[in-house]
């Protein structure tokens, strides 16, 4: 078995509680908007759009949170594979845009 993080990353004291997105889905995810969500989840404030989610403190549990936040905000249903294979805000924004086109 693989890919299971036992605990969220050790950014504990810096991590803010996740904020629920708007009930109505938005269109047009930008890399900056995805970076802002990841920054909130990781409790790091800002991150660049080409920085790696996992390098910035992300793990599998936090990736589930990210998937949920993206679905709430943009009605895009991403998977864990999507997150590990598109680990930067820019790549995720591109993926969300493509899923909206389908």
């Amino acid at each position, binding site marked *: *078995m*693989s*890919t*299971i*993080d*036992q*605990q969220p*990353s*050790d950014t504990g004291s810096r991590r803010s509680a996740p904020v629920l997105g708007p009930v109505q889905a938005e269109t047009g995810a930008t890399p900056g908007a995805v970076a802002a969500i990841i920054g909130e989840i990781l409790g790091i404030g800002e991150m660049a759009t080409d920085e*790696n*989610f*996992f*390098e910035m*403190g*992300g*793990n*599998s549990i936090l990736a*589930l949170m990210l*998937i949920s936040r993206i679905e709430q905000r943009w009605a895009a249903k991403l*998977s*864990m*594979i999507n*997150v*590990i*294979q*598109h*680990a*930067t805000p820019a790549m995720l924004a591109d993926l969300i845009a493509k899923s909206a086109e389908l």
Partner: protein
Amino acid sequence: MDISVTGHVAGISEEQFDRLDPAVGVVACYAKVKQREADGRWRVTYVHGTGDGQTKAAIPLYASYSADWSDPAYDPRAWALPPAIRADCTAARCMVVESYEDRCSGLHVDCSAREPRQLRQILAAMAQAAAGQDRCLSFPYFSSAARDALSAAACGRIAWVPLGAEAHIRDLADPDWESNQPKRVRYNLRHDRDLIASAGITSGHCSWSEIEDAASELIARHNIRKHQPDHPEFVRMRHRLWAECPQAELVVFTARSPVVTGVETAVLWNNELDLREIGLAGEEGADRRAAYLDLVFRQPIAFAQSRRLRRIRLGMGAEMVKTGRGAVLQDLHGGVLTASDARRFADEHY
């Protein structure tokens, strides 16, 4: 041998890569190794050795982007190493040799290059890569033969501990496989079939896509019950990656009775069946045991024989049960070359 470091396996011949360690199976095949390059949790480099126009070595080295181990079984701090060696082995301080998942590692070095002098040259390049990032080299789930070769090349500087054993059933293509087994094994296999029949188990197999949601739930619940943290989405990810792996076929065995439901996933590749994960729901008792035996032994053995496969890999754990059904065990070991020793080794031999 000429040694270089590259970031992609694509420049290496698939046929030559898979010939380097034919014993290890689908978890270390070219297609799976290439698939791992897309995993954003890890940065991969390969130590590539060539000679006489052929690839002699192609060893993947993985550096985690995350501070957390993606699979706790790969955390050397949980292995029975001396405290001074394991203390520094956080994910951020390790470079993992060969694989960070599936609990079985190959050694992608041609047999002609496994003698100490040539392997030392390869190991020195690996140590140099680790030392450049101030990381230890971690060798997870290596066979005894690989451990012995690496130990000789490293002049004993890698600290090793046993991590368990992987079970294999071999020679299944022989139509007389069962009758050639010892009396105890034949008795167990017959007794299992009787137990499965009396429990009224309905068996079958299907593709992953046909059963993904239910199987993901079952496997995740099963693992959580065994105190291994999991989530259906993680199970889905692991298996979709197998389903997408070229040349591999993901098969799901199913078993159902009025009181038990179960699945066992397996990957078919290159004339072998590699059992991956089980999910079993239902009360403890004879029916649950019957479903387990059906999923892990009766169905895979029948499937392998019907396709004339040569081997089933049964994974780790439940060793007595597996050897009682004809499996042989191959010991697996975990090793660490500390960051300071990696630096010294690279200075001396690179």
